[in-house]
């Protein structure tokens, strides 16, 4: 994208019918470190890459618990993400207080989207520079949504945002059809594999990633480092290839399958995120 004479204000249309400031905001999302979400009928997994600005500093928190039944992973301006998480938590807690019931995710997501839209139509505001993967559980099952700075929102079976997310998306596109009936464990495994794709050969350890899960009978929580490392070891030992077939067999022991495959792993670079 290049600078042009229509990109100074969010309230200025370009002749082609574009709002450049909004598009620039979406660029900010692409610059953030990756965040991934996938869902089955009963569970949603949110995962993110922990990028620290330097070796000396800690990494920024990118996954937030919004309520027992809703979690959010962000990519982009984490400060904007924090503020929106606070808004979401507030909405959930107010709803719970009035109705003694969890706020349906679909409704929260619409409120969030409407809030983002406001910033695209006020000359004294700027769009939020953060993309949100909202995972939640309600009466109609588990859901995963993506909220854009533009004020749009979409529901997904699986999605990835942030830098090098295309690699993860390619992986997810291959496997997503099996997710709906996936077991909890396989969903987490797929999240780890998708996350690994975004690391582009970097060594995958539990310190570089955060995994969180929510589901029927399981409140949203972030998995502790020990558990994550154990899971990473489980499939790393088995081989580079992810479990071949997951649709039919619940919790199929990946070891048995990989042993018979014996194929050399493809370590070629994934397509660059343009």
């Amino acid at each position, binding site marked *: 994208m290049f600078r042009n004479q229509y990109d100074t204000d969010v309230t200025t249309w370009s002749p082609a019918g574009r709002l450049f400031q909004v598009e620039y905001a979406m660029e900010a999302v692409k610059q953030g470190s990756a965040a991934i979400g996938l869902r089955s009928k009963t569970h949603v997994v949110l995962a993110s890459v922990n990028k620290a600005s330097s070796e000396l500093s800690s990494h920024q928190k990118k996954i937030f618990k919004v309520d027992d039944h809703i979690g959010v992973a962000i990519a982009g301006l984490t400060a904007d993400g924090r503020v929106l998480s606070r808004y979401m938590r507030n909405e959930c807690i107010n709803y719970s*207080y*009035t*109705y*003694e*019931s969890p706020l*349906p995710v*679909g*409704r929260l997501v*619409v409120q969030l989207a409407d809030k983002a839209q406001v910033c695209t139509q006020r000359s004294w505001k700027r769009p939020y520079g953060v993309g949100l993967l909202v995972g939640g559980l*309600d*009466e*109609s099952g588990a859901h995963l949504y993506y909220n854009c700075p533009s004020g749009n929102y979409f529901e997904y079976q699986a999605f990835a945002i942030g830098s090098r997310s295309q690699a993860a998306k390619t992986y997810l596109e291959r496997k997503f059809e099996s997710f709906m009936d996936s077991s909890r464990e396989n969903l987490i495994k797929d999240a780890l594999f998708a996350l690994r794709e975004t690391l582009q050969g970097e060594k995958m350890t539990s310190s570089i990633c955060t995994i969180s899960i929510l589901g029927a009978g399981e409140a949203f929580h972030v998995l502790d480092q020990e558990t994550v490392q154990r899971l990473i070891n489980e499939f790393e030992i088995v081989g580079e290839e992810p479990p071949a077939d997951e649709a039919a067999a619940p919790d199929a022991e990946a070891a048995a399958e990989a042993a018979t495959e014996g194929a050399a792993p493809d370590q070629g670079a994934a397509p660059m995120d343009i």
Partner: protein
Amino acid sequence: MMHLADSAPVTNNLLGSEADSQRTMYPYVTGTSVIGIKYKDGILFAADMGGSYGSTLRYKSVERLKSVGKHSVIGASGEISDFQEIMRYLDELILYDNMWDDGNSLGPKQVHNYLTRVMYNRRNMFNPLWNSLVLGGIKNGQKYLGTVSMIGVNYEDDHVATGFGNHLARPILRDEWHENLTYEEGVKLLEKCMRVLLYRDRSAVNKLQIAKITDEGFTLSEPYSLKTFWDFNAFNNPTLGAEGSW
């Protein structure tokens, strides 16, 4: 009407509403008891159709049982105009809920909690909605029955009642209610309670409705009357034994 001493106008604003004339001090047209019970397929409610004006049984076709959305029923005792106000709140609540059009809907538990918030907040402003409400329903097979009062007291139970119903009906229900009552058994039980109330509650009128809510939906019966028995010797010869009376 009620003999509340008219005090001098309050000058401070600590007690809420600007003009005292805007605050509910006492009720005018009131409904008496409402009873609700859980039964096998859902919830049953009974309430008579009386609207008393103090000690006068003035209005005899007041519907005190109303449906709320697809899953709930509300019954009200107390000030009828406040009940109508509550219905406006609830109708608006359900309207906005329906407008989402997203497969989610407010169930009886949510409506009950919402009402509790409304009643309690009004009580805190010293401007109560002068009602005792029974709220019940069934959603996805889950039955729910609760009550809220004008001061915000709320609880759930297998059988609830308002006003005199608490004193006259609930003892009967404690003895004779059980899970898996059939519809016929439930109605019979409610009628037994309503009959006692008819004999003993001076604000009761002999014209009642039964409301039912199940997963299939809401029904409200046509108004009908209970048979009563007055042929007691003491009533036939009321002055027997009262020397000098006629």
